[in-house]
């Protein structure tokens, strides 16, 4: 416990209500300089609300905030920044057509004799970049930077304001595994420089890797503290409030004799004419799950869109149960038995301003029983919604509630309920659990496996290796528009990592076994040294 009035961030009895909903219920939180403090909780637990209160974006209904011994009833963002609080939002607040340096001076355009001092801004970027190992070019234009680097620019912005307390709101949700590792390294160097970091997440692996302290929030209340050494299942139980199965419980696949989905020499172009998918071959049998692993942007999205028919196939053939799919419209591929779970559920999966009931019939709204001719049968629409909502346990106030009022996990359940409510030949799911909490992930995985066991060919695109390994019967690794290898799910992470970097299968396997030997060597030496020390 820090002495009262000393350095550190202290929240006492913070309560925030939205109407009848208590988003934060008398929360206490202490964050000290030089520590990484994880705020762990499911989506909707109230983590972001708490941080928005701290940052001054929302006034608390009750409670006090004290920053370095100065007490505030509530702050506004300007005061919060002045007091040393910096926030990196889930959705970046950057001007995309500006350079890094321009973004840095945004809102505090210092000038010398009427001229913006871009030189100073550039120097600041370089200095901070070097000091914390951020590696950001001050003259790069934001929209041309990968997501991971954009995030570092947000961190830079906070650091340039002399932030002592950095709030990172679900920073890894948008990152690839490699980018996540890089972010962790940056967080470590920030901590070592004496900064305090509040790291909001629901990913257990990350928490255990990086946290110094863990505070778990459930339904707006602090339910306890945990140690990074606690097991994942203990953390999950604390977070969800019941025992959670972390390992996917799936039986052996019983693939069909003949492949149901056959891709032959498929090429798909990007809007600019270059090939995103090049000469790709793949066979998927009924009753098996093939996961397409790979770093984001290696053609997975384009491949999925080509299967659906929103992006045309330039070359090659796609067949589902012997029927050609290439060249069909989305309408026709859906009718041919394709279930499609898009990568971005807000953008492509559902219409936010439509009701749950309407979203549940989005791709067969004009067919019986929901419509006769052009006349819609609203009682049938409601009947369907009622059944799906209970079958898929969609948590909503009513079937007439608009979908954007639902949590991410429940929105995804709406999409799944729609896609899995008819007989399918092929289920194509892209990032099916992105941004979901543990409970929802468990549910989605179970549904995907159920669909496999019904004899459907299931293709899952995922950049989360944990998920790929847990779900797949076979893993196809994609790199630069081609499949570089198809391996069994018990393949080591290292081999998968090498494949994802484009190393051919045999080489990857060979190289992995070499490193393994080398590692064993190192361990032997280390043990030897220890022995010598002791003696």
């Amino acid at each position, binding site marked *: 416990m820090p002495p009262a009035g000393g350095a550190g961030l202290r929240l006492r009895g913070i309560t925030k209500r*939205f*109407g009848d*909903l208590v*988003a934060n219920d008398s929360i206490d939180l202490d964050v000290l300089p030089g520590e990484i403090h994880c705020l762990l909780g499911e*989506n*909707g637990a109230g*983590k*972001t*609300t708490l941080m*928005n209160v701290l940052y001054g*974006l*929302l006034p608390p209904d009750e409670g006090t905030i004290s920053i370095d011994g100065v007490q505030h009833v509530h702050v506004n963002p300007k005061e919060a920044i002045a007091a040393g609080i910096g926030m990196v*939002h*889930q959705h970046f607040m950057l001007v995309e057509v500006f350079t890094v340096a321009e973004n840095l001076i945004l809102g505090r355009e210092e000038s010398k004799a009427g001229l913006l001092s871009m030189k100073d801004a550039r120097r600041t970027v370089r200095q901070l970049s070097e000091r914390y190992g951020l590696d950001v070019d001050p003259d790069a234009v934001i929209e041309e930077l990968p997501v991971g680097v954009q995030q570092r620019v947000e961190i830079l912005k906070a650091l340039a304001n002399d932030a002592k307390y950095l709030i990172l709101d679900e920073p890894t949700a948008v990152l690839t595994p490699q980018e996540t590792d890089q972010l962790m390294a940056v967080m470590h160097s920030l901590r070592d420089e004496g900064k305090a970091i509040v790291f909001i997440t629901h990913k257990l692996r990350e928490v255990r890797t990086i946290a110094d302290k863990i505070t778990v929030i459930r339904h707006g209340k602090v339910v306890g503290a945990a140690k990074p050494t606690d097991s994942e299942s203990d953390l999950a139980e604390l977070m969800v409030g019941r025992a959670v199965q972390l390992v996917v419980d799936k039986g052996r696949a019983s693939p069909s004799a003949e492949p149901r989905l056959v891709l032959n020499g498929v090429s798909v172009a990007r809007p600019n004419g270059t090939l995103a998918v090049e000469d790709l071959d793949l066979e998927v049998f009924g009753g098996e799950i093939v996961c397409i692993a790979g770093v984001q942007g290696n053609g997975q999205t384009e491949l999925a869109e080509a299967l*659906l028919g*929103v992006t045309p196939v330039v070359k090659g053939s796609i067949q589902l149960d012997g029927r050609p799919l290439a060249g069909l*419209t*989305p*309408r026709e591929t*859906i*009718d041919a038995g394709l279930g*499609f779970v*898009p990568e971005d559920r807000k*953008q*492509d*999966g*559902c*219409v*936010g*301003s*439509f009701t749950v009931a*309407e979203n549940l019939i*989005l*791709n067969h*709204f*004009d067919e019986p029983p929901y*419509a006769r001719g*052009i*006349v*819609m049968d*609203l*009682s049938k629409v*409601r*009947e369907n919604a*009622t*059944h799906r*909502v*209970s079958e898929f*346990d*969609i*948590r909503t*106030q*009513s079937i*007439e*509630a608009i979908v*954007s*009022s*639902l*949590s*991410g996990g429940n929105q995804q359940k709406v999409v799944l309920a729609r896609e899995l409510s008819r007989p399918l030949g092929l289920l194509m799911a892209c990032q099916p659990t992105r941004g979901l909490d543990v409970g929802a992930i468990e549910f989605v995985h179970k549904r995907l496996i159920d669909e496999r066991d019904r004899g459907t060919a299931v293709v899952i695109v995922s950049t989360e290796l944990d998920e790929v390994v847990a779900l797949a019967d076979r893993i196809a690794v994609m790199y630069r528009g081609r499949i570089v290898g198809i391996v069994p799910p018990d393949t080591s992470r290292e081999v998968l990592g090498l494949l994802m970097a484009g190393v051919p299968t045999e080489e990857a396997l060979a190289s992995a076994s070499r490193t393994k030997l080398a590692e064993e060597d190192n361990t032997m030496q280390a043990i030897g040294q220890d022995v010598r020390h002791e003696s």
Partner: protein
Amino acid sequence: MSPEPVRAELVEDRPSTGSGHGARRRIVIPWSDILITIASIVLAFLVGALLMIVSDTEVRSKFSYFFARPSDALIASWDKVSAAYAALIEGAIGGYGPITETTAQAAPLICAGLGVGLAFRAGLFNIGAQGQAILGAIVAAYIGFSWHLPPGIHLLLATVGGLLGGAFWGGIVGWLKARTGAHEVIVTIMMNYIAAGLLAYLLTTVAFQRPGRPDPISPIVDWNATMPRLEGGQLHLGFLLALLAAVAVWWILDRSTTGFAIRAVGANPSAAATAGMSVARTTIIAMFLAGALAGLAGVQAALGPTASGVPVPLTLGIVGSIGFDAITVALLGRSKPLGIVLAGLLFGALHAGGLAMQSIAQTPLTLTTVLQALIVLFVAAPALVTKIVPFLKPRRTRALGPVPEGGLV
């Protein structure tokens, strides 16, 4: 439709998920929209009153000795404002005559407003109601004065012709947008110019120009093609058609598959495309329907009787500024059929009352235009209204339903 059994099922089926709120189908009344609109109207009238006081020389002269005798200035102001607004109200709803004048003025505004509103629900800014109405008027008037058919049939054909004329004009825009990606705002504005030019040209041709007249005016429409009206007022078939059109639009949007697609494409085109809807086809259909509705406004201008009850000829200014007023009607009506009917009636009343105000209280007709503009301005800037009328604010920001994390940021 039987909501009762469904309701029962809802309660039975979801014991685990029901969070005590019940899943009854609710009719959502947009209270905050209604209150904001009423406040906007009141505020607009207040600003209008200020304008009258400031712009009247006599009243202003009384203000020069305001501190000596404030009552003079205040009484003069009150007299001026109350006389003008009394005349406005009298002219709009003071008896059968004024009320029917209001409906006659409102009918074309409602039709064209529906055309703008329907397109807006499909995510399209239809600035082209003016051109679509002109096309509707051209076709309807041409059939009206050049064909000579029996009663009933003549009016029916002229009306359908006008609808198709507007639909064709709107359909071109939809087709261009769907096929080439041309922005509908630019295209509709250009189509307005073309329609106005086309009308001017046609009125110089043998087919359209009235024999023996040098100026651009057509023969008068046949009695058989003129909308019948009730004796003693201005209430004619056009108003009934406008109400029918509003019901039709409501049915299309809320009860038909076409409307479902229109709303889906309007709200999220990429989700609609992913779900297999054709965005291009829906765009064309929406613009076709929007054009037909605006065309109906043109039909009313061409086939509606004058105030004295006689048919009209086709002239250059036949549709006035209906197509542009329609944009404000649709805005005020929140692009919902019922809202558009009410907004159309309000603006119709302002038009009708404005004429009375000019003749009785010597207040310029342009004040009604200012009032219209102010109402829409306030409606379009709800934050301004809640600032001036603060008690409206808590209603607007009260959270409805579960608030997603960070949802208020």
